[in-house]
């Protein structure tokens, strides 16, 4: 919207400084039946608070710009609350702490954190604050993005679209009365089976920054980008959807060792500016490639779930359904804006 240096940002916004406040306001006023704002925070809690009674709370959150994640998944059967940070910036501990306090029913609160330094540290500090109040808190740090090599000596892998499936499975379990310890066990079991990888056609423009996170030539794509325009592992000329699907699925196969005797859930995720038509075409190719390996996913979902502002691109998430309960949890009914 505002000219900034030579760049021009074409967005439907007012002041770049207020995007999160205005977005949160729009969301809670559009959907009061699902979410309510915890006063003076950007934390949104379930409107149907009765549905949380006697259950462990599940709280997620992170930077804004990934809508409908996180608040779009708040509601019965899924998250108890979600905390929004500034764009691509972890929320602060005081806000996370407020959300934890608001959802706790004496059974403890489970935190779903994506593996970014900021998120990990801010959620940790919030956990400390909550524990000082006597609230039991456990957490999982999701690191499903296989684009970066894993290593003990680095930050490790990022948390991306697979987090949505983690929310779904934990939310269903919590709704059915799982304890804090049981949720931790489920999360730990799901984590190594959950793998995501993305390709970008363009980068996101953070409103306060005013220009794209990176530049791709008119005919270039980048494999392995993160959801904050973190660079990926290779740039090349754009290829047909089938070739993109092949590249990404090969990477996932390398990690999960796809096996026709096993069951899988597939999430095809648009990054914000990619039309559903392209997402369905890509899904067609992914399903074809899996079918060549005699794999037919037991659960499929296609759409914009973990976006990156106006980035064009797509990600594949495969979850190996090592436990039959996970499939049931994915199909468990929910009352949310966006699932």
């Amino acid at each position, binding site marked *: 919207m505002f000219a900034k240096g030579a760049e021009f940002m074409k967005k439907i916004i007012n002041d770049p400084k207020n995007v999160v406040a205005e977005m949160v306001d729009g969301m809670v006023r559009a959907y009061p039946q699902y979410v309510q704002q915890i006063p003076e925070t950007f934390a949104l809690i379930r409107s149907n608070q009765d549905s949380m009674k006697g259950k462990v709370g599940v709280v997620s959150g992170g*930077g804004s710009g990934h809508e409908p994640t996180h608040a779009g998944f708040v509601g019965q059967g899924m998250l108890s609350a979600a905390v929004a*940070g*500034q*764009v*691509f*910036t*972890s*929320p*602060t*501990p*005081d*806000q996370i702490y407020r959300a934890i306090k608001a959802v706790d029913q004496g059974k403890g609160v489970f935190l779903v954190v994506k593996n*970014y*330094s*900021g998120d990990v*540290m*801010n959620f*940790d*500090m919030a956990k400390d604050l909550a524990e000082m109040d006597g609230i039991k808190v456990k957490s999982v740090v999701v690191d499903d993005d296989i*684009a*970066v*090599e894993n290593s003990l*000596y*680095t*930050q490790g892998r*990022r948390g991306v679209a697979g987090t949505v499936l983690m929310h779904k499975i934990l939310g269903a379990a919590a709704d059915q009365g799982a304890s804090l310890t049981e949720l931790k066990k489920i999360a730990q079991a799901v984590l190594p089976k959950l793998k995501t990888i993305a390709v970008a056609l363009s980068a996101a423009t*953070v409103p*306060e*920054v005013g220009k794209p*996170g*990176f530049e791709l030539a008119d005919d270039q794509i980048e494999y392995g980008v*993160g959801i*904050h*325009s*973190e*660079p990926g592992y290779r740039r090349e000329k754009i290829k047909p959807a089938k070739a993109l699907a092949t590249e990404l699925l090969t990477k996932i196969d390398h990690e999960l060792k796809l096996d026709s005797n096993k069951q899988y859930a597939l999430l095809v995720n648009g990054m914000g500016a990619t039309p559903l038509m392209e997402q369905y075409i890509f899904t067609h190719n992914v399903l074809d490639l899996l079918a060549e390996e005699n794999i037919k996913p037991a659960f499929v979902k296609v759409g914009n779930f973990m976006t990156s502002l106006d980035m064009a691109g797509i990600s594949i998430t495969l979850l190996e359904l090592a436990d039959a309960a996970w499939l049931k949890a994915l199909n468990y009914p929910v009352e949310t804006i966006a699932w």
Partner: protein
Amino acid sequence: MKLTLEKYLSWINEFSQKVIDKKDYLSDLDSKIGDGDHGNNLARGVTAVQQMLTAKQPQDLTAALKLTAMALISKVGGAAGPLYGTAFLEMAKTSSQTTELAELLTAATAGLQKRGQAKAGDKTMVDVWLPVTAALKNADLTSTVIEKAVASTKPLVAKRGRASYLGERSIGHLDPGAVSSGYLFEALLVAEDEK
């Protein structure tokens, strides 16, 4: 060197001004190897610090440090928020025992490392806090020490924070948190000169 309330206030003012002036540059550095928001994050933080200090008028150093920490923790977010926040919180805690700057910074750096798990050479702000703290202990902190520390992050491979996703491609870029930490300590030198 002892830190007084007065000296601290002029230090933090000087730093705030610098961050606001260099906001775009810090974000530009961050967009090279991170997500392009470090300047915006920190600017939001120091603005809150200024507001907090003006509103609350702290009467002693510990209170001022704690207010700074709280403003940073609750306004910056991202990685820099808990890191800078923890550093100032540790200084606040320590300041009730001693106002010796070298000791305050020793505590701060330890807190920083505990919070973020970064070691020397991981291409983070720690690569500035460690040598600066060491120099202060020897009472020989100079602009050169700071500049050298900041510059030392350029050839490194990032091991922590978003830049770590770049692996080898992080080589050749300054770490934005190191640069902002450099501003913090340059501001300290300015504040000292003023006295």
